[in-house]
């Protein structure tokens, strides 16, 4: 899966979780950029991403992830294994 393909799928997950069809994420997107992305939705987002890509974030990654770029890096490294 290429980075672009990951972003394509990830955009769908974000739109579904936050119920907003206009969301378009990129490397620098953070919780500050999406209105409903608070600590409650963060964990729902993580679960939805895990389900979509068939992978698992470690607890350390869940709490230290700084932006969507880091999320994509982790997804790519895990689905490559």
């Amino acid at each position, binding site marked *: 899966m290429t980075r672009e393909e990951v972003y394509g799928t990830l955009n769908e997950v974000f739109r579904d979780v936050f119920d907003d069809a206009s969301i378009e994420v990129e490397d620098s997107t953070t919780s500050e950029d999406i209105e409903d992305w*608070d*600590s*409650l939705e963060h*964990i*729902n987002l993580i*679960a939805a991403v895990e389900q979509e890509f068939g992978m698992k974030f*470690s*607890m*350390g990654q*869940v*709490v*230290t992830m700084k932006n969507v770029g880091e999320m994509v890096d982790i997804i790519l490294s895990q689905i490559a294994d």
Partner: protein
Amino acid sequence: MQATFTSFYFLCFYTCILLIYYLIPKKTQWVFLLLASAAYYLLTGNGILILYPLAGCAAAYIGSRVIAGTEDAGRRRRALAGTTAVLLGILVVLKYVNFAVNTVNGLAGLFGVSAGKGEVLRGLHLMAPLGVSFYTLSILGYVIDVYNKIAEPQKNFFKLVLYGMYFPAVLSGPVLRYREDGEQFFRPHVFDYRQVTFGLQRMVWGFFKTLVISERMNLVVNTVYDDYMSYAGIYVWIATVCFAFQLYTNFSGCMDIVLGMSQTFGLKLPENFEAPFLSKNISEYWRRWHISLGVWMKEYVFYPLLRTQAFSKLGKRLRGRFGKKRGKQITTFSAMFLLWFTVGIWHGGDWKFVIGSGLLHWAYIVCGELLEPLFGKLMEKCRINPKSRRVDFFRILRTFFLVNIGFVFFRAESVSAAVHMLKAACVWNLGGLAGGPVFALGLDAIEAVIAAVSLFVLLAVSLMQRKGSVRERIEKKRLPVRFALWYALLFYTILLGYYGPEYSAAEFIYQGF
């Protein structure tokens, strides 16, 4: 020596520590801070109780070394479970066994079951070490981070002890995170005039909040809450609002002193408050009040809880039954219930804390989430712009009101006293204020004016802080203006603060936890 930072002896102690800290070789600064922290702990409480934090640090040290020393998942998990059991076990035995015993005895009494002296179970009489609720969270968080491989395990036991027992933060927090705050303790710190001045200025601001505002509010609060059967209506509200400001200025003032003191040592600790009474809803309030506790609970209780197999299964079942959105919501609410119960009980082994600082706030958030669509429609129908300043102002007032109901439980002597006060608060007696009996609540007219002016200064500074650092803005002013401002605050605090040998200042409220 008194534990409180506002005591004269503590200030002498701190001044000596600060001077020596910058005179000794930089490599030994952390050792000196460790010795100062041990001395502080020994001098302020029952000396033998220092064994508790030392035992906690030893458990965390051994646990983290075992975890870091193996890739065997089972061994790592067992080491984490063992260390967590030791750390939380100490906390539970010291703080919560009597809570459980009292609850069982209370329930047994309700159903007419009793044994011995009317008690089914007997409580323990153990002395809890100072700051046990704070340092336990800091060191437990460190062990969990080592387990999650996001913190480097500390090889030097004494360095870990300094992190756990650092004297300004050991009694009232903030709750530290080793992966972000830990390493700075062991680095050399060169004297930086700007940092030391900034730190001292922040301490003065903390003293102002504590000695001028909190102590005045305390008088009104005590008058009403210590004799709550005699007061109703507006007096309950006045005392409760005073308590909200007492607690806020006491705790955030204490944090200003802790963070300012740390800044003078070249250390940057996490912020604990961000104008919480200007929050527009309860969730936002908890992102601004006792921030370090909220972050800790989120990372080490809420997230792991939602990622357990039990909650995953529950989520799947609920989504199947109630649909995707509602099912997700109910799962989150269930985990939040346990989270808020934990937050409440962390404040103390008493149902008044479990309700006032925990479950009541859970109920607020759940109701807020469930009613949000309804309010949205209502505002649309009434043609009210939800983003207008007026609506925001209403939201701030509403949140403050809800928080105050929680404070009634927090401050009242028991749950039944709180319920009595809330019932009494519904009495309409606003007209009675006209005769001036409000000045008989502990503050006469002049004292009330001083309190009001001080609260206005606090509000003005809080609003200014939203646009950036006030200290940095003052720094850019010309020298006479700068000096005039800081010395005005200093002398205002010295002249109007409540302190000194004849005055028994109220302790920092959160030091009791």
